[in-house]
């Protein structure tokens, strides 16, 4: 597998054409996509046009951008002008957005070639990509297993060599958990670092877009391109994108690293996952970091708070699917019946479950007991992490308590599926950055991911630590 930075350097120098690079990746897709189903749609012809435009820019002597000719897969919840954007839902099947998401404009301006839209759990609600209306994605390391979710298509696309780069969205772990299960790097930046304009909303106080790549360096290159202020997203932080690649190899000497007990020493974690976190910590120590264990007791309440806050926000955000302006409509005699019939036919089981859960948690008589209390617990979690970051530069933990599980293993038990996110939701609730780095293999030879967490806007340090873990893993 050739990395994104190598491809961009070759395309920029004229050593290889963007078109040749693209055709190699389209060939890889033809070979294995029928078994994996990473994509809802492969945009072969659109991508050929984009690749040819990059080659024409190189021929003219124009700067084709830092990601020149690098194929990139987009999670299918990011709007692409005139091209299908489904959220893996029947309710948006056939819809073609009238605008591009800001991240789409930015990767295209940087010369990346959008190769396709990747499969996800419907509206990003799930941890296995089995909740897609268009069928599950399978893990490239073992096609009887899930790739994780909800950005399972993007993680699988990178792991299978279909694209060196991909974008996902992470509301409760939807980038980091599939990255761990597929053996790739996945990053949830600080809330507000990447514009959500054109990202179809799930839970607006938690959603964040971030990169997938095979290496920490490639992920850093992509975050440098997509990050930075966007006036079209009022929750975007008024700062430029973080500088990451330049300081990547500055080392971890003297950094204070904490192993979070509540996100590592937990019930049900596989011993080899726990051992991987310890081995990564030992690697950092050998590289000069000071490692200690740390307790964040409120993190234990992350899943309970998350599964009240996220469905509450989702129930509000998904009210827009009413059969009026876009997507599916099921006709009925009057508007309320049309709305209800459209939503019954258009939403899958998990989406309905979350809308119901969220509506209940927000309804009269229960608001304070559930949603209000969850928001106050969110404050406790945020405060505890801020206090811990006074003593530690970064934290490490497991990303997923287990390696990739078999398809169907958790589909009958919603709560068991929700617990997949136990190590990842705290960073969404706090808004802090976190990423998953591959570190060895566990049961059945399947990849393990180690999570690195940092305080708000701590991406430069987080990436340095991730790079050191990658080196300790021998990659």
């Amino acid at each position, binding site marked *: 597998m050739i990395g994104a930075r190598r491809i961009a350097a070759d395309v920029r120098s004229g050593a290889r054409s963007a078109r040749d690079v693209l055709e190699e990746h389209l060939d890889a897709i033809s070979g294995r996509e029928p078994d994996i189903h990473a994509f809802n749609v492969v945009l072969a012809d659109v991508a050929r046009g984009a690749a040819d435009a990059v080659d024409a820019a190189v021929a003219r002597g124009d700067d084709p951008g830092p990601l020149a000719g690098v194929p990139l897969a987009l999670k299918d919840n990011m709007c692409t002008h005139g091209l299908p954007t489904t959220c893996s839902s029947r309710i948006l099947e056939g819809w073609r957005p009238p*605008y591009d998401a800001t991240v789409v404009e930015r990767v295209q301006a940087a010369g990346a070639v959008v190769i396709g839209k990747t499969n996800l759990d419907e509206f990003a609600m799930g941890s296995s990509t089995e909740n897609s209306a268009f069928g599950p994605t399978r893990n490239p390391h073992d096609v009887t297993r899930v790739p994780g979710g909800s950005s399972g298509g993007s993680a699988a696309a990178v792991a299978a060599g279909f694209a060196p780069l991909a974008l996902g969205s992470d509301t409760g772990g939807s980038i980091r958990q599939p990255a761990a299960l597929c053996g790739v790097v996945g990053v949830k930046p600080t809330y507000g670092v990447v514009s959500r304009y054109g990202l179809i909303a799930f839970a607006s106080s938690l959603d964040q877009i971030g990169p997938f790549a095979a290496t920490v360096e490639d992920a850093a290159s992509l975050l440098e391109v997509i990050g930075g202020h966007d006036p079209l997203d009022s929750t975007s932080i008024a700062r430029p994108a973080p500088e990451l690649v330049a300081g990547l190899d500055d080392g971890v000497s003297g950094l204070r690293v904490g192993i979070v007990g509540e996100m590592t020493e937990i019930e049900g974690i596989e011993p080899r996952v726990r051992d991987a976190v310890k081995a990564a910590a030992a690697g950092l120590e050998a590289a000069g970091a000071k490692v200690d264990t740390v307790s964040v007791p409120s993190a234990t309440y992350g899943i309970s*708070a998350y599964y009240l806050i996220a469905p509450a926000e989702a129930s509000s955000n998904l009210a827009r699917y009413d059969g009026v302006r876009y997507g599916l409509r099921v006709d009925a005699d009057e*508007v309320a019946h049309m709305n209800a019939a459209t939503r019954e036919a258009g939403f899958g089981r998990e989406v*309905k479950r979350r809308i*119901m859960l969220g509506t209940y948690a927000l309804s009269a008589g229960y608001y304070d007991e559930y949603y209000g209390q969850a928001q*106050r*617990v969110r404050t406790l979690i945020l405060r505890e992490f801020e206090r811990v970051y006074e003593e530690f530069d970064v934290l490490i933990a497991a990303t997923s308590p287990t390696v990739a599980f078999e398809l169907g293993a958790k589909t009958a038990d919603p709560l068991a599926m929700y617990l997949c996110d136990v190590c990842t939701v705290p960073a969404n609730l706090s808004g802090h950055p976190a990423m998953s780095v591959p570190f060895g293999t566990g049961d059945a030879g399947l990849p393990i991911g180690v999570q690195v967490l940092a305080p708000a806007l701590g991406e430069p340090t987080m990436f340095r630590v991730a790079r050191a873990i990658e080196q300790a893993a021998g990659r």
Partner: protein
Amino acid sequence: MAERITRADVEHVAQLARLALGEEEIQSLSEELGAILEYAAQVSALDTHDVPPTAHPLPLVNVFRPDEARPGLPRDEVLAAAPDVQENRFRVPRILGEEP
């Protein structure tokens, strides 16, 4: 505690959410929502007296942009994506109680 979500609760919430549900879905949702809420109720174990709620992790309030006119989305393209359109408007069935 798991059985506290009754069939009537499910039907009431479904109505609030404008969601039609089949008989089998009403059954399974009352069990599933009960189990999930029982787990989520763990948040009640923490003392949050005097703790303010967090709605949003950023210290941002009242974000303004310059009050400048800029073009909206192209009307034809937006309407082309709608299920039913009449005279450049979204067309819907009648509202409850209204004469056709």
